[in-house]
């Protein structure tokens, strides 16, 4: 597997705030790598460092296995924070500048403008664009010339639901072409829908990283009540995947770390002599789960 990006122990401090704390990440070719964390967790700082906008206090990083340079950046398409273009130039002129910097011909500009549904407005000045159009132009600019890597920092921030769906679909299309994507987001749902791998950040530290399906596995919870609550408790503790429980009123709230089929649960209780008169499945919201992940690691 070809390593696209390796970050080794990067730290960055702004005065008293430790924005990034000994962060190490490895991104392999073809991954859609999510960097997930709340606002202020160091996502943008990390991306700015690997794009040479900020100097890290410590640590190093390598692009494509080599020393980072301006030429390695030419193979990377990036959207960092807000879309940055000349307001008095139109979309086409702005992208010409990008193409010039990347030593590319202009023949790819129309393709990326069409992909992001901006082709009809390509002669309008950037300042006349709506926020969604500006964001789409930033993505068009990042995709110019089919870079090997796409870096997207909160690409759906501030967009309306239709815009969000459009951008997500676009990212998935690009991922299908085998382009490596690094996506920073504070939305768990977004990372889960788009990414194959994820690193979860909080306060500049990496909490976990790995496959999305493993790191962000949703544990189910059930609410149960039966004829013999004490016995029920014993049965549940031995159930594979058991995580925790608490008694609230007449019901028992049970958490599992793996996906559980309620039928299985009911059968097991019955076989062990407990008859349930209440069983309901509770799906926790993803955001709730994310907050728990963060809390567990504080």
């Amino acid at each position: 597997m070809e390593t696209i990006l390796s970050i080794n122990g990067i730290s960055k401090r702004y005065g008293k705030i430790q924005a990034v704390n000994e962060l190490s990440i490895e991104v392999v070719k073809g991954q859609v790598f999510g960097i997930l964390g709340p606002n202020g967790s160091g996502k943008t700082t990390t991306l700015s460092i690997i794009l040479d906008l900020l100097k890290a206090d410590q640590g190093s990083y390598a692009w494509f296995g080599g020393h980072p340079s301006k030429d390695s950046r030419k193979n990377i398409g990036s959207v960092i924070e807000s879309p940055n273009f000349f307001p008095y130039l139109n979309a086409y002129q702005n992208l010409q500048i990008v193409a010039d910097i990347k030593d590319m011909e202009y023949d790819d500009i129309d393709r990326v403008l069409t992909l992001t549904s901006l082709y009809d407005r390509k002669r309008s000045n950037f300042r006349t664009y709506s926020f969604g159009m500006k964001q789409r132009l930033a993505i068009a600019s990042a995709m110019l010339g089919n870079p090997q890597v796409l870096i997207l920092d909160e690409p759906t921030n501030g967009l309306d639901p239709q815009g969000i769906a459009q951008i997500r679909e676009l990212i998935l299309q690009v991922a299908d072409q085998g382009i490596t994507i690094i996506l920073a987001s504070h939305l768990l749902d977004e990372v889960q829908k788009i990414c194959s791998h994820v690193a979860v950040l909080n306060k500049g530290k990496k909490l976990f990283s790995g496959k999305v399906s493993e790191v962000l596995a949703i544990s189910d919870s059930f609410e149960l009540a039966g004829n013999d609550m004490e016995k029920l408790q014993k049965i549940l503790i031995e159930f594979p995947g058991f995580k925790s429980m608490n008694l609230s009123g007449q019901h028992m709230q049970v958490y599992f770390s793996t996906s559980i089929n309620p039928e299985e649960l009911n059968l097991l209780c019955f076989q062990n002599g407990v008859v349930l008169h209440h069983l309901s499945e509770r799906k926790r919201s993803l955001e709730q789960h994310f907050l728990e992940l963060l809390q567990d690691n504080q």
Partner: protein
Amino acid sequence: MTKLLKIEFKKILTYKVFWILFGLYFLFLSAGILLAEFIINHMVDSMNKHLPIPLPHINIYFFPDVWQNFAFFASIRYVLIFPAIVIIILITNEFTFKTIRQNIINGMSKAEFLLSKLQIILLISIIMMASLTIGAFIIGLSHSGTHEISFFVKGIPFMAGFFISLFSYLVYAFFFGFLFRNTGLTIALFTLYSLIIEPIIYFFLKSPLVIKNDISTYLPVNAVLRVAEYPALPVLKKVMGLELQSHVSISSMAIPLLYSGIMIAIVFWTMSRRDL
């Protein structure tokens, strides 16, 4: 054309603010130079009312004096400030629009970014020098007799002097732009320094006796203005007995260039370390 200049042209070509300010600069400069003789002679006329022996009218457009006079009028503080503001706007815009970040992200090095701005400064200086040279040549031809035309080469080094003055002054603007990064603040501070603060310092430093190697002449903006410090007015020499500049000295060109070199070095050094 270099790649960096090509990019810079794209940023400027449809930027109205640039063309309006540059147009105003060109207009003021041409009007100033073409009206200078009329204004000077108007002053002579009003002085003559109080003088027992009237001063003769002054002609500033014949060879070889026309070179020095054009260089002098083109490097007056109030004229030079126009292209300097244009440069400040071009540089600080990149911070306001955050396009400097985007340029770096897309694969420009910080050094290339700085070079692109220096190249546009160099180009503007060359274009202005060429325009001034052509203007002085045409005006000189139409105002000189056959005898004077034979002297026309003599003052040409003043055009090189003007080039050095303009280039250095624009490098000062470049330095201020990268130092302060904010358009309004930079224009205010640069104008304040050039037009008010340095003249005040100059006033206090200048010794009452006019000594050529006065320390005050080494102030950065003053050094730029001193390349063509006085107009060529032979009458003034005769009447007032002043020892006026008759040629461009190498040392007067070296001082602003030295300042420019130091400022460029500081900008490159800090930009390689500062966060964007």
